[in-house]
């Protein structure tokens, strides 16, 4: 069977420049977002790379004047969801291997908020474990709502569901997270 032909579309210097600018400006944010979803550096790297490949291919679809990051979150979220679906066929439940808290990088910005010091000292491990133990779909909503501080409307657009669904998923996820944090706090004290 003959492979379907791709339209004649050699990569242009503008296309490459667009990608380079996007990577330079949003690479780190995308990578950190991917890490927050996956809790795993290798998966975060794969997800980031794949997401920018999508950006490169679909660069004509991006409308200047709209939020690039919001588009990026959408691509990463979709890829992550597809990957989870693919894996679900193979594993009953996904339990990340490397869910231990990572050593802090040297490039880490200094904590400016008193709560940062408190979290680092008391809660880093329980929170890290709780996030890792959360179902991936729930983690996605929590990351978008509480860490990226997206509005319900933005999350609905990124995830592709209704605002009502965002609200109910977030409530369930936060309830579960609270329980998990408490459990890991107790077990570590």
């Amino acid at each position, binding site marked *: 069977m003959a492979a379907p*032909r791709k339209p004649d579309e050699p990569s242009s210097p503008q296309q490459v420049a667009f990608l380079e600018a996007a990577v330079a400006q949003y*690479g780190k944010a995308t990578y950190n977002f991917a890490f927050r979803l996956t809790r795993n550096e290798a998966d975060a790297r794969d997800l980031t790379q794949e997401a920018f490949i999508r950006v490169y291919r679909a660069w004509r679809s*991006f409308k200047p*004047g709209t939020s690039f990051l919001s588009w990026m979150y959408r691509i990463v979220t979709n890829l992550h969801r597809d990957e989870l679906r693919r894996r679900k066929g193979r594993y009953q439940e996904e339990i990340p291997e490397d869910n231990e808290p990572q050593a802090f990088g040297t490039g880490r910005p200094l904590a400016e908020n008193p709560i*940062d010091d408190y979290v680092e000292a008391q809660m880093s491990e329980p929170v890290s474990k709780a*996030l890792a133990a959360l179902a991936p779909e729930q983690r996605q909503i929590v990351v978008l709502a509480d860490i990226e501080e997206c509005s*319900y409307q933005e999350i609905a657009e990124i995830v592709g569901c209704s605002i009502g669904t965002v609200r109910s998923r*977030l409530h369930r996820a936060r309830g579960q997270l609270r329980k998990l944090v408490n459990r890991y706090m107790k077990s570590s004290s």
Partner: protein
Amino acid sequence: MNNVDHPTIETLSDYVHGELSERDDAAVHAHLAGCSACAELHDIEARLGEVLRAHARAEERELPLGFEARIVDAAIASDASSATGWREAFAWLWRPAIAVPVAAALALAIYFGAGAVNPPLRSATIDATSYVESHTALAADMPFADSSALPVTFASEVSAR
């Protein structure tokens, strides 16, 4: 909502996320001022968000060395490799379970000179609108507008606050 009706935990969460209507937001605000039990629940809700953001700041990662260049190379390579994008769009066609019967059906169709092929095969001529559409990104020097558009916060901004 009045002072007798305590807000639900869901309402408090919506309040913390700034997702209540102006009226409900004001009602919860007024209620919290006079109800220590709800104020305590609110603090727990608010604190959970703070803790999560603090944790995210603490574990923020730099891009691995050389990763940016690798992304660009991979993207260009994916474009250059024969029709990767299309192969991916029709990935389901390549799965043996589907590819074999599809190939068989196609062979039969050719053999019997049947004009009509399965709809999925016809979709191989799927529109390439996104490739063909002219658009303004070509002309823009600095096409990204995150500073002025959606107030999406990302990690590097959080650390700068």
